[in-house]
Structures are given as structure tokens and as C-alpha cells.
């Protein structure tokens, strides 16, 4: 897919300042995390379709199979459900598997094992067995891959007790959250974004962790809160820059983990701004947008100066081509328009 590679190459990100530290790409940061985990713990192994091929899962697994051996970094049969079960069984018996998929859609084949087994065993046997397994997948957009290769599934998984879900937005977090996920004693889904793979950032060498379940302020502002994760943060930043030119100061919250959700940071910011735009790389209905909207309605109601705005995917499957995609995905302009609408809204919200 040359146009896809060209598209990712053409994305313009803010350049990190090398004076602040070593600069590497997002994909390289993931590669480092995997290598550190494999080095640090003999129980860690990496499996997935193509983890040892020349494409190397967007470069994230490059060189790992030669460095750590084919027993610890291996290709799998096209058996997503069984391999999810194998990962679960291995995790229940002292290993820390990292099961990688180059599209989230393939995880749907493994839902029985992920949802009904991996997420349940710790509870079902009264806490005696842990299931420290990482399920990794990268989603993209604008790659013409259509309805069956572009599904953001984190919304479907939000209601599954026992799972954790992280969605990093920076190279620093991609490394630190993946290391946290691998060391976590629960099943953790790590959803990356294809469009972030070549984004550069300051990433320390060596081992560090970013805590699971903690969001972070990426930008401070008093007028409106933009909350999201993963690539939505990039869009939120662009929107905030536009809004600043108009005199609207947006606060941008990067959730980093979408389950368990850092509710406190959302409510804290909402208390200050009174306005909330929730941005997601997935569908608006029944997912992260809906969950955070409900959080604000339940526990931040008295702070609301305007209705809650959602910016995500419409209730429509993903189209295959760039012709329709332009109407489909959220962008900075839509986020800015939503925020502007809340700030310029005349008249108070009626709390009756």
C-alpha cells in the first residue's frame, strides 16, 4: 500500500527538542519496550501473525526474533481464538505473553477467549490465578482498508470487567505504558494508532513505566476541556491551537488508559472549564464518548455550562476509500467547531 506509507510519511508532527533528551519514533519506542521486557523477564514472549517477518508489525518487533530466539518471538498459525487461549493458559502458568495483531479486527475472532476466559479467570478462581497477558493491536485510518480492517474495538471492551485498556498518544507513553502492561498481572489491551508510528518524541533509554489508569494534562486552558486518547490527542492539540487564535483556551486531557478510567482528572477539569468535548478514534455510540458523557452527567452535572459534545465516528461502518473517509473521521476542524459551539453558546444550561 504505497499510498498508505506515503500518507503516514506525510503527517506533520511538532518536532521534539533534542535538547530535552534522546529522540526516537513511536514504533522504535515500542520496539525498545518489547526488547527490555524480553531481556528483563524470561517469562515474556511475543507472538502474532508476522511478528518475525520483514514488515515486523510496523517495525515494532524488528530484530527481536534474531536477538531473543524463535522460541520467544514467534509467528503463529491463523488461529486467533486458540492463540488467545494459548496466551491465556501460558499467562495463568507463569508466563507473560504479548499477543500482537496488526489490525484490531482480528481480535474479534478471539473475543470468546479474551472476554469470556482471560478476563474472568482471576475472579472465577477467587484470585488464585493471575492472567498477565498483553493483547496488542494497531488501528489506522486513511488506508483504504474499509469496514473489516479499521474497527476501533475499545468501546466494545469497556464493559468487560477484569480487562484493562491503554491507548498511548506519544512515543514516551508507548514505551512506558507497554512496559506497565507487560508487568501488570491482568489482561491488558494495548491499542496503538498507525498514524502515530512515525511520530518522534523524547524517550529515555532503559526501563521506566507510565502508570496504568492515570490521565495527564497535555495543555492547560480555562474555557473548554477536550478529552480523549491515542491519535485523538493529536487532533485535540491541533484544534486547541486553532481555538487559541480565536481567544478560546482549551484544556487537553490525554486519558492514556481508557479502562480503568481516570475519572478524577476529567471531573477536575470539567469543574474548572464547565465545558466538555469528548474525542475518540472509535464510534460515538456506546463507547468511550458515551461513557465519559455519562460520567459528566452523573458526577459533573452541576459544573456543566453547556451540553456535552462528542466527536467520534458516526454510527456507520468504515468506508474503504479516501473519497468517503474524508466525511467519516474526526479532524481538528470538527473538534474545534464542537468546542467553539460550547463556548459561544448563549444562555445558561438549565439545571432543573
Amino acid at each position, binding site marked *: 500500500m504505497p499510498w498508505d506509507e506515503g500518507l503516514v510519511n506525510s503527517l506533520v508532527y511538532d518536532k521534539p527538542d533534542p535538547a530535552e533528551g534522546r529522540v526516537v519514533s513511536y514504533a522504535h519506542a515500542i520496539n525498545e519496550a518489547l526488547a527490555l521486557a524480553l531481556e528483563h523477564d524470561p517469562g515474556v514472549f511475543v507472538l502474532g501473525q508476522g511478528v518475525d517477518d520483514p514488515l515486523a508489525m510496523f517495525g515494532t518487533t524488528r530484530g527481536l526474533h534474531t536477538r531473543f530466539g524463535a522460541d520467544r518471538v514467534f509467528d503463529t498459525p491463523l488461529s486467533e481464538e*486458540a492463540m488467545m487461549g494459548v496466551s491465556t*493458559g501460558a499467562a*495463568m502458568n*507463569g508466563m507473560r505473553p504479548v499477543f500482537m495483531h496488526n489490525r484490531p479486527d482480528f481480535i474479534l475472532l478471539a473475543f470468546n477467549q479474551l472476554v*469470556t*476466559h482471560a478476563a474472568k479467570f482471576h475472579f472465577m*478462581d*477467587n484470585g488464585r490465578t493471575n492472567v*498477565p497477558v498483553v493483547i496488542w493491536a494497531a488501528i489506522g485510518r486513511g488506508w483504504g482498508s474499509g469496514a473489516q480492517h479499521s474497527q476501533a474495538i475499545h468501546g466494545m471492551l469497556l464493559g468487560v470487567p477484569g480487562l484493562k485498556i491503554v491507548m498511548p498518544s506519544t512515543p514516551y507513553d508507548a514505551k512506558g505504558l507497554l512496559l506497565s502492561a507487560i508487568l501488570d498481572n491482568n489482561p491488558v489491551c494495548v491499542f496503538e494508532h498507525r498514524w502515530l508510528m512515525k511520530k518522534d518524541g523524547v524517550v529515555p533509554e532503559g526501563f521506566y513505566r507510565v502508570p496504568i489508569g492515570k490521565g495527564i494534562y497535555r495543555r492547560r486552558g480555562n474555557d473548554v476541556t477536550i478529552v480523549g486518547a491515542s491519535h485523538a490527542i493529536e487532533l485535540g492539540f491541533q484544534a486547541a491551537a486553532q481555538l487559541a487564535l480565536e481567544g478560546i483556551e482549551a484544556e487537553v486531557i490525554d486519558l492514556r488508559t481508557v479502562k480503568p478510567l481516570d475519572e478524577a482528572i476529567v471531573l477536575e477539569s470539567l469543574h474548572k472549564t464547565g465545558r466538555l468535548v469528548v474525542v475518540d478514534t472509535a464510534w460515538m455510540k456506546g463507547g468511550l464518548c458515551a461513557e465519559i458523557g455519562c460520567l459528566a452527567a452523573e458526577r459533573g452535572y452541576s459544573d456543566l455550562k453547556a451540553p456535552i459534545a462528542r466527536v467520534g465516528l458516526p454510527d456507520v461502518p468504515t468506508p474503504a476509500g479516501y473519497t468517503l473517509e474524508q466525511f467519516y473521521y474526526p479532524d481538528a476542524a470538527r473538534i474545534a467547531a464542537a468546542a467553539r459551539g460550547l463556548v459561544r453558546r448563549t444562555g445558561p444550561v438549565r439545571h432543573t
Partner: protein
Amino acid sequence: MLRIRRIEEEIERRYHQDQMKTPIHLVIGQEGTSVGACSVLRTTDLVYTSHRTHGAYLAKGGDLKAMLCEMHCRINGCAGSRGGSMHLIDQSVGMAGTSAIVGGAVPIATGAALAAKMKGEDRVVVAFLGDATTEEGVMAESLNFAALKRIPIVYFCENNFYSVQSPLATRQPPRDIRRWAEGFGLPAVAVDGVNVLAVRHAMADAVDRARSGGGPTFIETPVYRFRAHGGAGDDSKSGYRDEAERMAWEAVDPLHLFAEFLTRDSLLDVSLTQSMERDIAAEIAEAFEYALTSPNPVEDDLYRHVYAD
């Protein structure tokens, strides 16, 4: 086998009293496969099963009191009241996991065996499954992977010819399950499931193969459940299976066959049988009393162990 039979009969006898509010799947008629399979395993070997757990749990060395507490939803059940009859999970005896989704435990068992291999542990894993499990895609996926990686596991298929009330002939073309399994590139044998010693011998071979690095084995054991798929009593009268068929299988009850064998070889006599019956009856009575007087979980227990620390 006698102990498992009597325990199952007592569970069945008491089931209508509604003190065990858990869906049960009795193993009566299939004790020979449970015991034959587990008799060659060590405590450190792991067993994974489907929803029909009682036989494997007891044969693997499970604690009767912990089992009955689990079935009465008491806090001191083997799974802290979270599992019930379908999830008699007990790591202390290697009853490592169960699934109420047919085939669900099969890849997990495969992964447990992969872990044992990767860690260089002297450990064999057994996945108990039924005839219907071989219809699940994940079963085929697991056999393929286990054969590919020479994983130390035994797939132990108790073919009792029914999935709930659906006969095998309406679900699979006329061919041996054993031969189907063999197609995945692993040794597959069929052995008479009502003959506990034959099951034990086949299992010993398979376990030896796994322990010595020879990889997986599939064992098919034709056997029959004398009771309904779930709940107490027989359901043959509902018409899904012939009573004559059930009676023909009851004529080769694995418990009676083994008792006859032992008696013939002068290893068993009336007084020994009576003493075993007495001991078992006393153990069962005590265990039920223990379960019925054990504490219930409290609300705080609900929120424990959703996540591991």
C-alpha cells in the same frame, strides 16, 4: 470410582432440595474415564475441563468439602463460591481451569502446556473434552498448534455421543473422531471408556510421550452418561435417546465391570466393599454437613479479585 459414584448419587438425591443452587452435570457412568485418566497424573500435572467437572475434580485429588461448599455457594468453596459446579477450580490439586463454553478450556490447556515446555518443567497437561468439542473451531486450531510445537499435552475426549440432547449422528458425518484428530499430525488412539484399566494404560502411554518430549496425544474414549445432560435424574423418557440404548450401556457400567475384575482376581470381596461403602457414606455425610453449616460470602466479597494486584 465407587466414591465418585456415591458422591454423585448423593448430590442427585439432594438436588431437589434446592440447597445446591448451581447447574449440575453429573458424571455417573463416566467415572472410569475420569479415574483412568487422572490415575497416572501427579499433583503437579494440570487438568482443564469443560462444565462436567465433578469426576475430574475428585479423581485429581480434589477436596470433597471444598467441592460441596462450592456447590452450596459458600465462601470456603474451592473457588470461593464464584464458580459453582461448572467451575471446580483448585490450583492446590492441579485442577487448573474449567470452561462452560464448549472447547473454551482446550486452548488454555494448550497454553499451560506450552508454558511448562518453555519453562522446562516436568509437567503434563490434560484437556478433558467431549465429542461436541471436536466441532468447535478452536479445537482444530489447538490440535494444529500443539502438533506444530510438540506441546506436552493429552487431549482426552470422552465421547458420550450426545451434546445436551443432540445425537452425534446429527452433528458429525459418520467417521471416527480419532481419525479426524490424527489428521492434525499427532498420535490418536481410541480406547474403551468403560474399561478403567484400558483408559489408564492408554493415558500412561500418552503421558509418557508428553513427559519425554514426544508431544501431544489425542485419546478418544467412547463412554455413556447414565443421567441427563444437566440436573438430576435420567431424561431418556423425553425421547431424544432410546432407553434400550441407555440400558445396554448400563449393562457395561464401568464401576461394575471393574468390581467384577477385582473380585475375580480376589482383590475385592464383600467385606471390603462394605467397609469402603461405610467409609464413603460417612465422608459424604460429614462433607454435606460441613458445607451446609459453612458461611456465606458477604457483599464485600463480590468486589474482590476483579483485578489482580
